[in-house]
């Protein structure tokens, strides 16, 4: 228990959580049929990247540059979510579904 607590507050603990979040995000993107489900996976991936930046900024460099990059990641994720949801709403109006497999208009 004590060992686990020490690990959780170390750089390795942060990196482990980041890696788990990243691989769960990749898994979510690969397995979901739903376009919104894919978006959930992307949000997990971006959060994992932010965790890694913040962890390195505290435990290694001691500068705030990592935090600023994490802030930019957050803003880009917000913009991306807004555009993606607008596209999903548009697609739903067109096809009455948000199944990503149905999005094949541009295939031919």
């Amino acid at each position: 228990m004590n060992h686990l607590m020490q690990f959780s507050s170390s750089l390795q603990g942060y990196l482990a959580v980041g890696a788990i979040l990243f691989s769960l995000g990749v898994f979510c993107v690969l397995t979901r049929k739903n376009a919104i489900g894919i978006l959930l996976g992307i949000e997990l991936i971006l959060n994992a990247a932010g965790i890694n930046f913040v962890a390195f900024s505290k435990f290694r460099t001691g500068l705030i540059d990592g935090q600023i990059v994490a802030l930019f990641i957050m803003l880009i994720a917000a913009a991306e979510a807004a555009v993606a949801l607008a596209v999903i709403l548009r697609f739903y109006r067109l096809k009455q579904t948000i199944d990503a497999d149905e999005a094949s208009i541009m295939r031919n």
Partner: protein
Amino acid sequence: MNKVLLLAEILTVASALIVGFHPNILYASVFLLFTFCGVAVMFLFAGADFLAGAQVIIYVGGVTILILFAIMLTQWLYKIKLADIRNKMVVPALLSAAVGVFLYRALHQMVAALPPQTPEALEKFTATPKTAAIGQALLGGYLFPFEAITILLLGAMVGAVWLARPE
């Protein structure tokens, strides 16, 4: 203090597992909210007080609500398909696990390459408020990316409104 951080990390990972594996998209997006809260607490313990606040405001208050709105607008509650996940899950699971392990090992090498901070420096870094420093940096050395991101946000906002316009 360590206990709170450990609990936050367990909350983050557990709710991320639910986001990844729950077949119902509505439950998955509600548990994404708990993941974001856990990450905010982790930011707080890493000395990123401003980022923790921004995380709560942008992700918990903004993105999650936006996703829930999109679910409500596109699928009726009783019509949400329970089997939303594909049947073939072995290959994606192996692939994503391999990606995660590779990422952890690669970052581990980077950890070894960079010199560690002393415990006193870590204490000091966690205890200093960062808002003023981040503001100075955004209007100083990071002015160009800051302005670029404002244009990106404006473009994304206009684009989203245009895409979701009524017929």
